[in-house]
């Protein structure tokens, strides 16, 4: 099984000490290591969703999520979720696949998604405008929370070619190559030391073939992209929860206070057992969402939202309990557990918060 190879790989090569903490401490502008991304490629992970005939592994969301759970468990910084999952889903079946998939398979290409314009995820609330201009389009507007934008070879940008902000009609997705003129990238460190940018588009000119899918048909592309991204983020959150919990459960067995292991205190035992159960439930919900996506089920969107909402809530509880149960040591930068809380907050918001997804579930 895939997990048997990915789990030790991520635990060895993707661990906090040599990846997250290292890149943070040296102030790396990417927030991740390109060498590791190459290693992902060697294991066939970067092309996990890419069809075999295009050089990939031709696997599905279930397998991508196996990777993401291990990424979450080890807090491994990489462009896997944005590039190998979301961007691949966006480009599949379009002319952009031919152009970008080889680089992704090779671990040489990084892609980013520029969708949100406000502080909360709201993919229909696009105001960034793409006006017809000559043979192509001219883009003006702004984006925020564009993960890996400054490291990206290509940025997929949701723009408005018709309709108005809040409508799902009239959206078009564009693939903008690195270094486009008129595009300003303000590369920002997030709380978890990952990098996300605010983008300013001032009449960025692109050819007509920059369109991904159909003009005014961006919502269809976005839907499959966001479903894959949300499902993947749910797995990453489950991994974050499991990683934080594992470290905490170990600590409960080792740490002594008042002459006994703190794991012997019943109040902590019950909280730990409750949390363990919640993580199992989040994992099952996340697995079901991936299965439904791979089957193309009409229920997939519902369960993707269930998965993202549940894994978000559960992982938040997990990191809170982790910090509290670690006590003072967990508050120090020297200890790794704090990184879980920071990463949780970022992935929690990515592709929509638990509240966003719970409201989607309730509105079904």
């Amino acid at each position: 099984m895939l997990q048997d190879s990915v789990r030790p790989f991520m635990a060895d090569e993707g661990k906090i000490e040599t990846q997250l903490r290292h890149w943070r401490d040296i102030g790396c502008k990417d927030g991740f290591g390109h060498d590791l991304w190459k290693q992902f490629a060697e294991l066939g992970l970067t092309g996990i969703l890419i069809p075999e005939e295009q050089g990939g592994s031709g696997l599905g969301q279930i397998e991508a999520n196996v990777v993401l759970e291990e990424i979450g468990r080890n807090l491994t910084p990489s462009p896997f979720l944005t590039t190998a999952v979301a961007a691949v889903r966006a480009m599949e079946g379009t002319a952009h696949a031919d152009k970008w998939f080889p680089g992704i398979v090779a671990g040489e290409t990084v892609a980013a998604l520029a969708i949100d314009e406000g502080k909360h995820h709201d993919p229909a609330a696009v105001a960034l405008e793409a006006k017809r201009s000559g043979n192509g389009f001219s883009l003006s507007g702004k984006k925020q929370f564009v993960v890996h934008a400054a490291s990206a070879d290509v940025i997929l940008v949701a723009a408005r070619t018709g309709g108005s902000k809040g409508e799902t009609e009239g959206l078009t997705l564009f693939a903008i190559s690195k270094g486009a003129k008129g595009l300003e990238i303000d590369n920002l460190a997030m709380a978890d030391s990952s990098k996300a940018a605010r983008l300013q588009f001032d009449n960025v000119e692109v050819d007509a073939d920059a369109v991904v899918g159909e003009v005014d048909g961006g919502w269809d592309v976005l839907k499959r992209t966001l479903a894959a991204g949300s499902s993947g983020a749910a797995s990453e959150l489950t991994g974050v929860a499991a990683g934080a919990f594992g470290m905490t459960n170990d600590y409960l067995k080792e740490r002594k206070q008042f002459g006994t292991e703190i794991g012997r205190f019943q109040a902590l035992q019950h909280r730990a057992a409750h949390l363990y159960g919640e993580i199992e439930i989040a994992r099952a919900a996340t697995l079901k969402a991936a299965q439904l996506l791979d089957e193309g089920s009409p229920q997939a969107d519902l369960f993707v939202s269930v998965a993202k909402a549940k894994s978000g809530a559960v992982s938040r509880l997990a990191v809170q309990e982790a910090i509290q149960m670690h006590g003072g040591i967990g508050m120090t930068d020297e200890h790794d557990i704090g990184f879980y809380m920071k990463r949780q907050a970022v992935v929690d918001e990515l592709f929509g918060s638990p509240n966003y997804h719970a409201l989607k579930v309730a509105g079904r």
Partner: protein
Amino acid sequence: MADLESFARDVRQWLEDNVPASMREPMTSEKDVCWGGRDFVFQSDDQKAWLEAAASRGWTVPDWPKEYGGGGLSPEESKILRAEMKKMNVRTPLTSFGISMLGPALLKFGTEEQKKRFLPEIARGEIRWCQGYSEPGAGSDLAGLQTKAEDKGDHYLVNGQKVWTSYADEADWIFCLVRTSKESKHGGISFLLFDMASEGVTTKPIKLISGYSPFCETFFDDVKVPKDQLVHNENEGWTVAKYLLGHEREMISGMGLGGEAGSSLMSEAIADADAILAADLARFDVDALAFQAMSEHFIDKLKAGEAHPAEPSLMKYAGTELNKRRHELVMMGGGSNALEWESERSNNGQTPRDWLRTKANSIEGGTSEIQLGIVAKHILQLPGA
């Protein structure tokens, strides 16, 4: 794979042919459940017909061996049957403690003779069982039981008292924990089966806060139990009891799913919910659907023999807490309508009585605290748990 596909086709066809239309309607209350037993009064001819049809193919207990009245299905086949029944909204033909609790224990610990004697009757819904575990004052400490069985040569003489015996007044037989030795707490317990019509057995319903009496106090006064009704070895009944408790917990965890009755209740609560209740309902939806995914996953693992032995405790805990929350939300949504206790309009206070009933969910079959302790010990392996 091809075999399974043809099996699925066969299942669909057979269900189409054999399930009466009224047995494909969602159940609306507890009363639609078919419990079987000597004195069971069928709600309808359809209910009876469907039980008989299912039993004839062994599909009241699809994964039991055919020789004991089961369907002899593999885990994959069982899963398909469950899925097809769910798709067609087919009601469970038979629900009983015999199926969910005693049967698995007999399959594992019973003698060949015991299996042949009891399992087919269970599968056909001809016998209704109750469980004699709890005793007055013992509460969560099940193994602290006092009911004693003395060895009288060809039989045991049972004296003592049980409490919280579900439906003891409607049951035909009881599976019962008794003390056969005082030498050790867990090591002196035996597992007996006997007829509730035996001389010396009396039952007394316990009135609950809901006003219902689903439980009894059950008294044994010189009850004679033939020795061939001992399951497993004498003084090793605790092993059987623990195994069976896991199955009880599986069954109880199903409450978390709420069933059809649960969801119609919820839709009433949702109607004109205030903004805070609406938010709570949204979160509940997420948790209920996630738990549904977990239940499916758990049953698959269980049937494939891959579930951790303590996992039923987790499911029991999560499922019952979820069910309690569901009924709290229903009460909030119902406002003062949901407080009426005796009116016809309120169906004699069904909403508040059901709500109060759920408060026992996290107590019966092992409290939530007991389940959490089991998880802490057996899965998390925390010291002293």
